[in-house]
């Protein structure tokens, strides 16, 4: 008897589906890892197939940044992206928002029994492409399978690690009265693109998700202005711009006053929001950031952002104020004034 290959029949990525065997830890699970994940994410650490990945130490003086996100979007494929790419961008961005350079990702998959392997492969390939583009390596992972009806196709949790240069502190509590609030582009595209496919809401729009890795943009921004002048970076994902700004006012103990007319929103996003009774300020983004910076660097920073493909529509949208109530307020385009509160509850389409 000759020595056999480990897996005699390759996985059927055309018509096959995830079944419970793929999560049982035996040969089928090992084959899935080898023929799908290890092949798509290709890097030495992953290929070794150990319990964890060994990574080099950061350069002297640098600290680590670690961030994690669970991704549970529905539908899994949406205009402009899919959960695979999203799971890379989401975590890369969280690391980048700390001012760090994201380098390594861990990915854990929770797959629902019955999920088509062809779709899984598409997602994983998209994830691999997103990682390559963002310059990060997916160095370790895990896969579990849950019974049909106990999951929702695919959930992906990613954790990122990156290096933070000496002396840098960018955090939600650094905003100071007088600082300027910038946003890197038009808001609300991701949420609208996803909602457009939701059963019973379906509408047609040219809007696609803005999902993108922002580490290139943050690197350019941080290189353009003196250390310390960028106070806060944050990606306004769930809860949208409004919620992110409220987080910052809470953490920093300040207020923010926005100028509605300055907040960039695509006309189709406005229209879709009108149709559904939503406010773009509360709709999720996956490729935008909010920056709070010292007033004297605001122009330079804005110019740098606008030169970058992920920041070409960047805008100055408000100022940080002293406010013990930590309100985010807004001068409306109409000329009025109002509070911009936290998202309360779910972003349910308002009908009545």
């Amino acid at each position, binding site marked *: 008897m000759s020595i056999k290959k480990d897996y005699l029949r390759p996985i059927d990525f055309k018509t096959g589906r995830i079944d419970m065997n793929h999560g049982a830890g035996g040969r089928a699970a090992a084959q899935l890892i080898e023929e799908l994940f290890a092949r798509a994410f290709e890097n030495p650490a992953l290929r070794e197939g150990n319990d964890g990945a060994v990574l080099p130490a950061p350069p002297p003086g640098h600290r680590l940044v670690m961030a994690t996100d669970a991704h549970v979007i529905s539908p899994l494929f949406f205009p402009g992206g899919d959960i695979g790419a999203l799971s890379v961008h989401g975590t890369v961005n969280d690391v980048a928002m700390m001012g760090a350079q994201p380098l390594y990702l861990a990915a854990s998959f929770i797959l629902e029994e019955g999920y088509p392997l062809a779709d899984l492969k598409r997602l994983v390939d998209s994830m691999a492409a997103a990682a390559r583009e963002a310059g990060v390596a997916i160095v370790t992972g895990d896969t579990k399978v849950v019974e049909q009806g106990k999951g929702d196709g695919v959930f992906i949790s990613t954790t990122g690690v990156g290096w933070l240069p000496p002396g840098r502190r960018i955090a939600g509590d650094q905003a100071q009265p007088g600082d300027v609030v910038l946003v890197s582009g038009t808001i609300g595209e991701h949420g609208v693109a996803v909602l457009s496919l939701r059963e019973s809401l379906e509408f047609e729009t040219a809007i696609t998700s803005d999902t993108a890795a922002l580490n290139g943009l943050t690197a350019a921004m941080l290189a353009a202005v003196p250390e310390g002048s960028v106070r806060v970076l944050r990606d306004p994902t769930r809860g949208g711009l409004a919620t992110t700004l409220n987080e910052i006012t809470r953490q920093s103990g300040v207020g923010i006053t926005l100028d509605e007319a300055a907040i960039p929103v695509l006309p189709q996003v406005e229209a879709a929001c009108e149709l559904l009774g939503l406010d773009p300020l509360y709709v999720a983004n996956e490729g935008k950031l909010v920056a709070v910076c010292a007033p004297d660097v605001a122009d330079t920073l804005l110019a740098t952002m606008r030169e970058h493909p992920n920041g070409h529509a960047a805008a100055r949208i408000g100022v940080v*104020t002293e406010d013990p109530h930590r309100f985010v307020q807004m001068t409306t385009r109409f000329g009025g004034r109002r509070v911009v509160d936290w998202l309360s509850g779910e972003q349910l389409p308002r009908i009545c």
Partner: protein
Amino acid sequence: MKYIDEFRDGEIAKALATKIRAEAQPDRRYHFMEFCGGHTHALSRYGVPALLPDNVQMVHGPGCPVCVLPIGRIDQAIGLALDHGAIVCTYGDTMRVPASGSLSMQRAKARGADIRMVYSPADALKIARANPTREVVFFAIGFETTTPPTALVIRQAAKENLPNFSVLCCHVLTPSAITHILESPEVKQWGTVPLDGFVGPAHVSILIGSAPYEGFARDYRQPVVIAGFEPLDVMQAILMLIRQVNEGRHEVENEFTRAVNREGNLAAQKLVAEVFELRESFEWRGLGEVAHSALRIRPAFAQWDAEQRFDLAYRPVPDHKQCDCGAILRGVKRPTDCKLFATVCTPENPMGSCMVSSEGACAAHYSYGRWKDIAIVPA
């Protein structure tokens, strides 16, 4: 967006504000009730009150369909899902309205109730067709705007003889609510709530026309201006109301001529009359039992009437003791008058229905207007 953006123009708003300031006589107070939650929402979201002089004050009315839904009706809907195992379809707005036993439709869902949000009543029909072994109930709420679409699905279900679909009808009528407020002791006799005019419903009026308001403009000597839901519409209506007051008129005027005429949508009215009939009385949150203020499904369609099908009895449930929603809906109190406002009662944990929908007076003030309650610290 054509016919929308033009009515949100900040430049014109400034002009209108100037005009209002010019025409509002400083020695006079103007208290106008916007009946509709849609107007409440427009006022808050666009920050209109900041543009009005201090002596022009808006009083929120009961025209938020979610706010006037009494606890007992939500309980019925939840009971259909939890006790009868029905799929209950509902507009998203009702999901967080407080019900009995610390429940809401959203919390009932978290306890296993099969409650599904729909965008249109037609979606509820689709769900019924797709789940032939399940009872599917559409929780029909709203004023005259939402009623015709409900009538359409009931007629369609009857046409298809759909065996597993029914409607829990909680549709209410605008004119009776306005009359009820004008008849309330506070407004009519005590004079504690001086109302100087009404901003009349926008979309409701598309359906019923402007004629129904003529009676009470005359009988109660109240100016009424029907206005669209865009902020310029509301400001223009306020200006028109100020003029009526100044001139001692009490007429029904129509600012919303682009969508409202005197008769309304006759086809829709016919359909509604075919499917529904008047209830003798119906409980409103805040207003209590109001005679001839709501619709029920006609006997010819009894099979699709959830109240008949499941033999539901209505059990009124009192609101939270300290909740002032009732008084607020009647225009007697303001959100900040309520002890629970922004302390125990917030949009995350609404104690009353006015804190739920962004058309609710309390929620609108909490989410958009709180800055007015405090001294603004200059930036």
